[in-house]
């Protein structure tokens, strides 16, 4: 019994997680072997949860409808790709996915720190194992979320996957978001470990910053895919709607972004310690909140997942995390105090602090808006909600300032920047910003939207500044090592992956925000009702409704249109939007009309371009088709019933049905016969649409620069990949010295960074001399410690 294997593996996974928690806590006070034991237990946990996932996936692949979850979310006709990904369209499957990703991330984190952070790791292990115990326990004891629940006898077929979700990005989007949510558990757990063990230097950050960056990248990719799906699949032409569930994924991404910046300040300068642990606690809590929101039904959202029984438990976990972490932070305040202060407001750390405040303010605003229905119910007794304009009003200015800071941050050096250095590095970006603003205001209608104009100018500032950074880095490298400019660029990037990877991310974000600003401020949207042959003008283009189209298949009827897009009398492109009406699954021999009562999806006609996208959706006028379908259904009923006056073929059909009623073994034959006749009829009826001359309503959108949202997102992801990629370096001998080695490594990197900043003109000779001497002294201190 495969389901029994799964249940046992899940139960063992739960027990292993409990064991790992207890062993890790014991190991923190007693013998080392308990800690080793807890680490191995986490590896075992990972294997067990993997086994659970494999059992479930085998059931999905093999159409084992004895599994309730398979029966509910898959069917024989479901394409193989969707069978394998249908697991996480179920509540229980998605929770299992959570546990699985967590066990993988925890194993990876513990493996990579097995020789480091001796005092911190036990508590971090206990935290991660406890979270894993929570999720496996939820699956084991929660009501109605057992992934291995069985149906007996096994049904012949399943319900199938909702057609709306049959989109590749919809299948990849959830696991990406989950990976993002879950991977934040690792830095969170190590922060808790550092607090508990009072090891509050930057070592826990150095050991987990990769996980934070990976989490951030996955969450970002999840958001991007969700936006893309909304744009191409939902038929409304937008990519963001400030829907609670979208916000729930955006919030941890924003605090995660803040965290990735502020931890650098702690690494380099030992400051912002309280802020960093608070940020990661907030990020992890927001990730849990996202998991909770989609399952709770407390807020009105497009993503209505019904109120499920697991909501209260997750809320309990969030409360525990918040209260426990706050108590821990407060009790460690004395250890968290930093010996240093920010030297100057014109330094990178000061800018990071400002950008952090902006990101957190943005997150807090979104949080307030998202939970406003609950807040207003508390104060006024009425659930009132806030719409997109309210969100835009606050998020737009903050977003514009953030673009500016993506450019300012990289231009500044750590500690301070001298006046003449500042003039040198800021000159070109400022000129670019002014030129962009003036050029756009003079030659385009961008001035109609001052906010968008400001964003474009700031983005020009940022992009020029970043380009200058690459340029100066490459020329500095070339002066040192010779070679061609591209080779020098490659060398300087691969030797300073974190820095230049980060810059690439900034380029991506600036590009993405340009796309958002242009497409939201300068979009042309028209709803047209046209008959075949008619045309309308949208934004200088003539849209001609050339002819209607019909496509039929066993599961759907699709009505579409061929739209010719002409500009200056020349054909620019052809759009083919359509709308598909799915026959409801599972119902035995329904009516033809049932096609129009089931799911319908828009297939968008899209011509993507570098300067603008042409987007069209269609709402076909199928009143006549539906009338004919009703008529056909009535005729069919009369025919099957053998009513007087029906044609002679009906007699045979009617006899067959009567026979089937008497003898159940004939039923499948009769039903197949009817279904066959119905689909032939449906097809014929649908084809009638071609000659109906029916009006169709089209939504046509001309969206400038929208493609750059996706391109910018991909650039940012590439940057994250560069920053995460491990540097090629001689394998260090594994052993006790790992931690000191890492410290030394970090200091060397700082010295190199300062060197690069000096070469790139960001540090004046005088400042560089002071800084370099300081860093070298610190490095010598580390070397002395090593000798002891």
């Amino acid at each position: 019994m495969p389901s029994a294997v799964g249940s046992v593996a899940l139960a063992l996974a739960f027990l292993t997680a409990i064991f790992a928690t207890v062993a890790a806590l014991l190991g923190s006070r007693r013998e080392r072997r308990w800690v080793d034991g807890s680490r191995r237990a986490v590896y075992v946990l990972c294997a067990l949860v993997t086994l659970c996932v494999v059992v479930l996936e085998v059931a999905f692949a093999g159409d084992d409808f004895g599994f309730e979850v398979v029966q509910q979310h898959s069917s024989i006709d479901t394409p193989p790709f969707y069978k394998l990904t249908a697991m996480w369209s179920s509540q229980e499957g998605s929770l299992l996915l959570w546990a699985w990703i967590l066990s993988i991330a925890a194993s990876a984190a513990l493996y990579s720190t097995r020789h480091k952070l001796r005092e911190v790791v036990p508590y971090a292990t206990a935290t991660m194992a406890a979270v894993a115990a929570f999720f496996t326990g939820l699956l084991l004891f929660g009501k109605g979320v057992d992934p291995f629940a069985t149906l007996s006898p096994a049904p012949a077929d399943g319900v199938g996957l909702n057609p709306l979700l049959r989109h590749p990005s919809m299948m990849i989007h959830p696991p990406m978001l989950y990976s993002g949510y879950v991977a934040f558990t690792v830095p969170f757990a190590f922060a808790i470990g550092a607090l508990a063990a009072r090891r509050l230097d930057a070592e826990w950050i150095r050991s987990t910053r990769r996980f934070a960056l990976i989490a951030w990248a996955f969450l970002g990719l999840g958001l991007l895919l969700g936006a893309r799906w909304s744009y191409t699949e939902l038929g409304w032409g937008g990519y963001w709607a400030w829907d609670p569930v979208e916000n729930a994924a955006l919030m941890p991404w924003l605090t995660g972004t803040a965290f990735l910046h502020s931890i650098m300040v702690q690494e380099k300068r030992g400051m912002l310690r309280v802020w960093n642990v608070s940020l990661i606690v907030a990020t992890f809590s927001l990730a849990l909140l996202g998991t909770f929101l989609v399952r709770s039904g407390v807020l009105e959202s497009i993503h209505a997942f019904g109120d499920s029984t697991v909501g209260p438990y997750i809320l309990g976990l969030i409360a525990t995390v918040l209260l426990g972490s706050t108590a821990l932070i407060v009790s460690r305040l004395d250890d968290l105090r930093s010996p240093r202060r920010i030297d100057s407001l014109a330094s990178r750390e000061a800018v990071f602090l400002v950008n952090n405040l902006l990101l957190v303010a943005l997150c807090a605003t979104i949080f307030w808006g998202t939970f406003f229905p609950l807040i207003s119910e508390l104060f006024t007794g009425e659930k009132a909600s806030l719409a997109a304009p309210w969100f835009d009003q606050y998020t737009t200015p903050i977003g514009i300032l953030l673009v500016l800071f993506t450019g300012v941050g990289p231009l500044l050096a750590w500690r301070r920047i001298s006046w003449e250095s500042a003039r040198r590095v800021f000159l070109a970006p400022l000129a670019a910003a002014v030129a962009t603003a003036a050029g756009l205001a003079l030659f385009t209608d961008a001035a109609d939207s001052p906010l968008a104009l400001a964003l474009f100018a700031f983005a020009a500032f940022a992009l020029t500044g970043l380009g200058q950074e690459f340029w100066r880095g490459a020329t500095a490298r070339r002066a040192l090592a010779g070679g061609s400019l591209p080779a020098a660029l490659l060398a300087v990037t691969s030797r300073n992956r974190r820095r230049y990877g980060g810059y690439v991310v900034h380029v991506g974000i600036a590009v993405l925000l340009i796309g958002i600003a242009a497409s939201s401020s300068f979009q042309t949207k028209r709803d047209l009702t046209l008959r075949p042959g008619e045309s309308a003008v949208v934004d200088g283009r003539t849209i001609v409704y050339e002819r209607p189209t019909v496509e039929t298949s066993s599961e759907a009827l699709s009505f579409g249109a061929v739209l010719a897009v002409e500009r200056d009398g020349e054909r620019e492109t052809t759009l083919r939007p359509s709308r598909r009406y799915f026959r409801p699954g599972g119902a035995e021999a329904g009516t033809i009309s049932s096609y129009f009562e089931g799911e319908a999806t828009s297939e968008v006609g899209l011509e993507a371009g570098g300067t603008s996208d042409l987007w069209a959706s269609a709402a076909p006028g199928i009143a006549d088709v539906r009338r004919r379908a009703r008529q056909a259904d009535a005729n069919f009923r009369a025919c099957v019933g053998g009513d007087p006056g029906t044609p002679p073929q009906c007699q045979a059909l009617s006899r067959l049905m009567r026979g089937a009623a008497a003898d159940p073994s004939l039923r499948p034959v009769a039903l197949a016969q009817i279904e066959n006749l119905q689909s032939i009829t449906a097809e014929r009826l649908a084809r009638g649409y071609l000659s109906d001359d029916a009006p169709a309503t089209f939504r046509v959108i001309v969206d400038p620069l929208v493609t750059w949202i996706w391109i910018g997102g991909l650039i940012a992801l590439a940057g994250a990949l560069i920053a995460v990629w491990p540097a090629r370096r001689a394998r260090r001998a594994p052993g006790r010295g790992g931690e000191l080695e890492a410290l030394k490594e970090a200091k060397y990197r700082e010295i190199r960074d300062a060197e690069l900043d000096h070469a790139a003109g960001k540090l004046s000779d005088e400042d560089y001399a002071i800084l370099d001497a300081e860093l070298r002294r610190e490095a010598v201190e580390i070397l002395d410690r090593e000798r002891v």
Partner: protein
Amino acid sequence: MDPARKRKVRLVVALGVAVLLAVALVYTSFSASTEALKPSQLLSAAPGTSADLTGRVVKGSVQRQGDSLRFRVADRDDVSKSIPVTYAGTVPDPFRGGREIVLTGTVDDGLFVGERDTLVTKCPSKFTSSNA
């Protein structure tokens, strides 16, 4: 000014700005929000009341009239209380009888007039509700 004093001043200014912004946020959110009302509440509401209508589309009630849609929306938990609705604008893919919707608009003579492009239809529950 000595550095400690300077820091304190900066902190006070920053906190002051934060408080001001927070007050603006709270104020605008209460004035910009629209109430979410059920059809049973809307039936007794004064004409001209604007609200977010939340409820379930009555099965078989959806009719297209020219550019606009006519349908009835009932309370989520009580199908007998329903209000007629007229709406023009984009219709999200998942919209049909039986689905839960949110629509912004105003009550006019027993008819709920939806604002253009404000119709939100909930996705068919992806995570099936255990008590459905």
